[in-house]
C-alpha cells in the first residue's frame, strides 16, 4: 500500500507489515466508529439551527443537563477526595485484606451497570439496609437526584484510585526523607511535596470520573426515579425521544453530548500528557 507507507516519517523500515496493519486499523476504525458517529452530525444537519436550538434548550432537556452535569461534578469531586484516600491507604498502609480491597476497587469496571443499578436501588430504597437508616432522618436517596449521585460515585471511584495509585507508588521516598532532614513536618511534606506531585493525577482522575459519569445510563436509571424536570439524566432524554420515534430530537441531544465528550477527551489527553511529563521529571529515573 504505497499510500500508507507515505505516512511513515522514518523512510526505511526493517519490520514488515506497516501497510497491512495500519490499513486494517483505519478501515475497522472507520467502519465501526467514525462512520456511525458521523451519522449523528449528518442527521442533525437536516435541522435548521433554530430547530436544533429549540430541541436542545427545551426546559426538560435543560433540567436534565443540570442534573447530569451537576451530579457528575459532585460525584467526581467526592471520588477525588475518597479515591485519593483509598489509594493512599492501599499504597502506604499494610492491613489485613489489603490485596482483596485492591482487587475489588475495580468492581465498578467489571460489574454490569444494570446490576449495580438494581443493587444500589435495593440498598437505598425505603426498606433497604441503608434506606432504613436514612429515611427516619428525612434523607431520601432512592428515586431522587441524590440517588443519581450515589450511582455516579459508585461507577467513578476506580478512575481516581487507579490514576493516583501508580504515581503514589513511584513517588521517591528520598524526597520525603530529604524534606524531613530539612526540617519539614509531616503535614508540610504532604502539602508541599506529595500533593503537588499528585495534582496532575488527581485532576486526570477527576476528569475521567466526570466524563464517565456524564454519559452513564445503566446504573442510574434504576435508582433515579426518572421524574421529568427532577431526576431525568440527559442519556435518558435520548432514550425517551427514541421511544417516541423522534430520531432527530434524540440525535440533536446526542450531538450535544458528543461535543461534551470530545472536549473532555481533549482535556483528559492534555492532563495525561502533563501527568506523564511531571511524573517523569520528578521520578528522576531515566529510561
Amino acid at each position: 500500500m504505497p499510500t500508507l507507507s507515505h505516512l511513515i516519517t522514518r523512510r526505511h523500515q526493517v519490520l514488515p507489515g506497516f501497510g497491512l496493519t495500519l490499513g486494517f486499523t483505519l478501515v475497522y476504525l472507520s467502519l465501526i466508529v467514525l462512520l456511525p458517529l458521523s451519522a449523528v452530525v449528518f442527521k442533525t444537519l437536516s435541522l435548521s439551527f433554530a430547530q436544533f436550538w429549540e430541541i436542545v434548550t427545551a426546559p426538560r432537556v435543560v433540567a436534565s443537563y443540570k442534573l447530569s452535569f451537576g451530579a457528575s461534578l459532585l460525584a467526581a469531586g467526592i471520588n477525588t477526595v475518597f479515591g485519593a484516600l483509598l489509594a493512599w491507604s492501599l499504597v502506604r498502609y499494610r492491613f489485613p485484606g489489603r490485596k482483596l480491597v485492591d482487587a475489588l476497587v475495580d468492581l465498578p469496571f467489571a460489574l454490569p451497570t444494570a446490576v449495580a443499578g438494581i443493587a444500589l436501588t435495593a440498598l437505598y430504597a425505603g426498606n433497604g439496609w441503608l434506606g432504613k437508616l436514612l429515611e427516619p432522618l428525612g434523607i431520601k436517596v432512592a428515586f431522587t437526584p441524590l440517588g443519581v449521585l450515589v450511582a455516579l460515585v459508585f461507577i467513578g471511584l476506580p478512575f481516581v484510585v487507579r490514576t493516583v495509585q501508580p504515581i503514589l507508588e513511584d513517588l521517591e521516598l528520598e524526597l520525603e526523607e530529604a524534606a524531613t532532614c530539612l526540617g519539614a513536618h509531616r503535614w508540610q511534606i504532604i502539602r508541599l511535596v506529595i500533593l503537588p506531585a499528585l495534582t496532575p493525577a488527581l485532576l486526570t482522575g477527576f476528569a475521567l470520573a466526570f466524563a464517565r459519569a456524564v454519559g452513564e445510563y445503566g446504573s442510574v436509571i434504576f435508582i433515579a426515579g426518572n421524574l421529568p424536570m427532577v431526576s431525568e439524566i440527559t442519556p435518558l432524554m435520548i432514550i425517551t425521544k427514541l421511544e417516541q420515534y423522534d430520531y432527530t430530537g434524540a440525535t440533536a441531544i446526542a450531538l450535544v453530548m458528543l461535543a461534551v465528550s470530545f472536549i473532555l477527551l481533549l482535556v483528559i489527553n492534555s492532563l495525561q500528557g502533563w501527568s506523564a511529563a511531571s511524573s517523569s521529571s520528578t521520578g528522576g529515573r531515566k529510561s
Partner: protein
Amino acid sequence: MSIEVRNIRKAFGTFEALNDVSLEFPSGELVALLGPSGCGKTTLLRIIAGLEAADSGTVFLEGEDASGTHVRERQVGFVFQHYALFRHMTVFENIAFGLRVKPRHRRPAEADIRHKVHELLNLVQLDWLADRYPAQLSGGQRQRIALARALAVEPRVLLLDEPFGALDAKVRKELRQWLRRLHDELHITSIFVTHDQEEALEVADRVVVMNHGSVEQIGTPQAVVEQPATPFVADFINLDDHGPDWLVAARLKHRGHILQPVHNPLRPLRA
C-alpha cells in the same frame, strides 16, 4: 568479508547524521568507529547492517552492492547496545533463535542446533548459564550471550554498537580484551562503535574517528594518536587528560603498547 561504504548521506529531518561518508573496511580486521555522541557512528553501523537506509550512497559487501539485500539476507551479526536479548527465552533459546527461524530445508537438525549452541556457549565461556533467563544475568554475561547469538548464524561480518557502553569500568576492560582474543581466533571482519578513546585504541586494528557526520581520520591506533590528521582528532583523543602526563599517556595503549600523544611527548616511564 570486506565492507565498503561510498558517499553515504543520511539526515533525520534537518539534522545531518552522515555527510558524504566513504570508507573501506578490509577483510578480517577489527575496526573501531570512534567519536562523540551524535557524530553519526551508530547510524553508519545501522546502515551497514541494513537496519537503516541511507538517503544516498551505497554499501558494498564483498564488492557487491548490498542496497537490494534485506537485513535478513545480509548475513551480518549485530550486537545491540542494550543487547536486545529475547527476555522470554532462556539463554539457550536466545542463541538457537537464528538457527530455528531458518527455512525448513536449511534448518539444522535439533541435535545439531544443540551442539552448535553449546559450542558457542563454550566459546563465550558461559555454558553453565544455558537455562537462565536474560534478566538473571549480569551485564557482562548478557553482552557475551548477545555475541554468541550473533555468531550462531555464522555471519560474514560482526557489527557491535557500543558493545561495552552499559558495563562498569572493570568489566569493560576484561570484556574488551576478551573480544580482541575472540577476534584473533575467528577473524571475522568486525566493526564496533564506541565513544571511548581508550577502548578504541586498545583493541582495534584500525580506528575511524568521526565528528559531525564526517570522517576526520582513518588509521592505526598509533597513527591516530601520534599523527592526528586534524585538531579535532588531537583534541578528542586527549579528551580527559587531567592528572599527571604519565598517567594520561599510560591510558592510551594499543594491545599493551603505550602510545605517545603528539602534543604530550612522553617521558620514559619507570615501572
